[in-house]
């Protein structure tokens, strides 16, 4: 063995020894997340309603309002106001008609995000939100847009296929092919409005997608709840502090 080989072997030994000496310990942690919005000035929250569109199988306005109210009831210190859900599309159309002095136009179907744009001026109408605030003792108002649309994408998938050669021997080979997968996307934003002044305090954008295999038949409402489940932690962390549990590795 040459001196060079001896040196190499001893360095390798030292490296292996160092690796063997490194101890690790798994430990549970809880990361506190401060709320993004200071809601100290409010005792009540009003989830007013949403501009919604997309598939007709789910009423995005009604379902989102119901779901957020129930989540806030159990996971926030704010008192949740029970009220009728605001038909924001109608409110926006009427406000526009009043401004222009014309009859409100017949509502066009809302199929994609840009179809909501003609109605979004309602969020900037501080007078309207102030009036709503006065009606409900100046709460924090939650509103926004919800677009729940069917989605279809071609994805590369791998499956196993049986093949027989010229001698009749069976083999299983992986075959990759494009497959159309269907699902839904949920996009929009949560808007938090000060019920005392009607001013927007904070806006939170969101966007989630889910795709299923062609053999799977998932109702639209189930997909909606699946996607909302992903958004809820972020929504709640805007209003109240959250603790996220996890595992980390301590090293020695």
């Amino acid at each position: 063995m040459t001196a060079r080989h001896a040196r190499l072997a001893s360095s390798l030994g030292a490296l292996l020894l160092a690796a063997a000496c490194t101890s690790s310990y798994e430990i549970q942690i809880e990361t506190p997340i401060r709320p993004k919005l200071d809601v100290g000035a409010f005792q009540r929250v009003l989830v007013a309603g949403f501009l919604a569109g997309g598939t007709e199988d789910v009423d995005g306005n009604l379902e989102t309002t119901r779901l957020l109210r129930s989540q806030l009831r159990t996971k926030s210190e704010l008192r949740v106001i029970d009220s009728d859900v605001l038909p924001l599309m109608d409110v926006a159309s009427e406000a526009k008609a009043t401004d222009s002095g014309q009859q409100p136009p017949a509502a066009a179907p809302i199929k994609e995000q840009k179809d909501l744009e003609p109605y979004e001026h309602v969020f900037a109408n501080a007078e309207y939100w102030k009036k709503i605030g006065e009606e409900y003792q100046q709460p924090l108002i939650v509103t926004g847009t919800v677009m729940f649309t069917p989605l279809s994408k071609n994805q590369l998938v791998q499956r196993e296929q049986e093949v027989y050669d010229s001698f009749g021997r069976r083999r299983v080979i992986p075959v990759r092919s494009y497959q159309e997968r269907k699902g839904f996307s949920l996009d929009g934003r949560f808007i938090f409005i000060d019920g005392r002044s009607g001013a927007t305090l904070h806006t939170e954008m969101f966007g989630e997608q889910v795709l299923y295999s062609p053999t799977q038949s998932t109702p639209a409402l189930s997909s909606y709840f699946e996607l909302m489940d992903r958004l809820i932690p972020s929504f709640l962390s805007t209003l109240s502090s959250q603790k996220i549990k996890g595992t980390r590795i301590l090293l020695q």
Partner: protein
Amino acid sequence: MSMRTVVPIITLLVGLAVAPLAADARDDAKKQVQFGISVAQKSLWREAIFWWERATKVDPTYAAAHNNLAIAYEHEGDLAKARAAYEKALELEPNNAMIKQNYELFKEINDRTTRKTGQ
């Protein structure tokens, strides 16, 4: 004795003199890290931070101390300090799979808190 002979000898002597100091610093830091681990396991995270901060001062090249400190900062909700400590640990040991895994999990939480917002 020529310069060509003297220089390597001096380098060797300096190396030999410094090596035990470095080893002492690492040994000392290891003790502090171990103590920090034992208190963290009892959920005494503030005390753990104290020991791990000391360890990083005694031996700033000790990646494990920075990694543990990052975890403790994360537990205390100090995400900016946690990020800096994880990045230091990875700078010292870029191929350490356990530090990488901790950092990835941390980033997932950190990204959630800094999700795209407007206004």
